[in-house]
């Protein structure tokens, strides 16, 4: 329990699980794992594409790509994959605006696609992403990278790269903040309705 107790609690009652420094270190570690697992820096490496799932999978994919470039001088094509139209829970929430799907010019056919999202929870978003990806092309293989895995899977889905495993209660909420969108980097735990 030590990590969870480490962060400070903000005025909204959210506990900081990862500080900006933690976020940067975690992403760097994930970048190394990607390089290692995909042999990105090998001489005859096969194409790899990072696809961020809006909203916060997008900056995460870009940062991973930047770190990979920093460590290897390899530029990994990066794009975005919106899954809204493929969700199975549309009727449970107010109408969602669509996010952007922007595939790299090289496309995804025969590439190793790494889906990138901020938090892995039920797995439904990733299932939607797999459906969306099928309509976008035919990758050689698909992997998954997430900054936080908080458990409570409802589908047989697991991540290939996990920044941090965070055991949570179902009522709790995990928020990932990125400076590009939120003005600062952090991972917060909101205890939800529980006192």
């Amino acid at each position, binding site marked *: 329990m030590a990590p969870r107790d480490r962060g400070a609690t903000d005025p909204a009652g959210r506990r900081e699980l990862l500080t900006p420094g933690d976020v940067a270190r975690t992403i760097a570690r994930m970048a190394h794992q990607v390089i290692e697992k995909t042999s990105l820096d090998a001489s005859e490496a096969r194409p790899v594409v990072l696809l961020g799932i809006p909203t916060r999978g997008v900056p995460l994919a870009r940062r991973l790509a930047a770190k990979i470039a920093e460590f290897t001088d390899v530029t990994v094509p990066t794009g975005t994959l919106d899954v809204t*139209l493929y969700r199975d829970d549309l*009727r449970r*929430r107010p*109408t969602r*605006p669509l996010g952007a*799907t922007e595939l790299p010019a090289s496309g995804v056919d025969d590439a190793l696609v790494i889906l990138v999202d901020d938090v892995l929870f039920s797995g439904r978003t990733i299932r939607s992403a797999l459906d969306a990806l099928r*309509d976008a092309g035919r990758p050689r293989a698909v992997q998954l990278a997430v900054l936080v895995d908080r458990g409570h899977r409802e589908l047989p889905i697991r991540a290939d790269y996990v920044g941090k495993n965070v055991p949570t209660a179902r009522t709790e909420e995990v928020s990932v903040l990125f400076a590009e969108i939120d003005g600062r980097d952090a991972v917060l735990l909101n205890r939800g309705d529980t006192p």
Partner: protein
Amino acid sequence: MRHLLGADRLDADTALAILDTADGLKRTLLGREVKKLPTLRGRTVITMFYENSTRTRVSFEIAGKWMSADVVNVSAGGSSVGKGESLRDTALTLAAAGADCVIVRHPASGAAHRLAGWLSDVGTCVVNAGDGTHEHPTQALLDAATLRDRLGGIDGRRIGIVGDVLHSRVARSNVHLLTTLGAEVVVVAPPTLLPTALADWPVSGLTVSYDLDAELPTLDAVMMLRVQAERMHGGFFPSAREYAVHYGLNATRLAMLPEHAVVLHPGPMLRGMEIAHAVADSPRAAITEQVANGVHVRMAVLYHLLAGEEDQA
């Protein structure tokens, strides 16, 4: 959004959200071989057309099918609609049969509003696909989508709507939507084809003119309305020839428009009457883009109506 009955009830945020969704759908489907999204799987959409309009019905049908909805077409010819069943009974029957959305085209102004009232208890949503001489909101949305593509935006643009405004639901919907989105709209027609007291309409940014030539150089876009055959014999103007001379968009008038200006027409066109052949086929005309945008806009409308929580206001 529970129903789409008229552009008069659309606020700018909702209209822009629909246009953005249409844009997103267009980009998503661009270059795809299989134009099929699973979004509305299991939802039933019924088109109920009491007037013939192949283009609008097909556009809605494709929109529904590309979103994986089950689309059923009811036409006045092939059902109890033609046997004198009341609109209310037909609507309640279709709702009871499980329609999640009814898309209605009807010759009576207000028919879609009435349907929405009768279906208020059953949760079926209603899309107005043209009611009498009242509104045709999806046409206005697709026109707005086309103008956004061509002009980069609508706010602050000056748009002319020319022709039989009196009997045009397309004109009414566009007047509401384009002014809501910040455009200046000038309606140009002979006085006999203008609705009563246009100047008193609770719409800001709307002006009226009888003189097309005077307006053309000021316009960013001109929307030519169809002149229906029955109007030609209704004494609204002396002859088709005189109408074409005064209000038709020919090559000379096309040259009076600014370089960047766009020509729209909701179709079907009467070439040689309100629009000259050469104008309709010129690169300034966005008429085929309008048709393409029609599908994406109608997909977006179905998405906003059917892909959210059920009991949204």
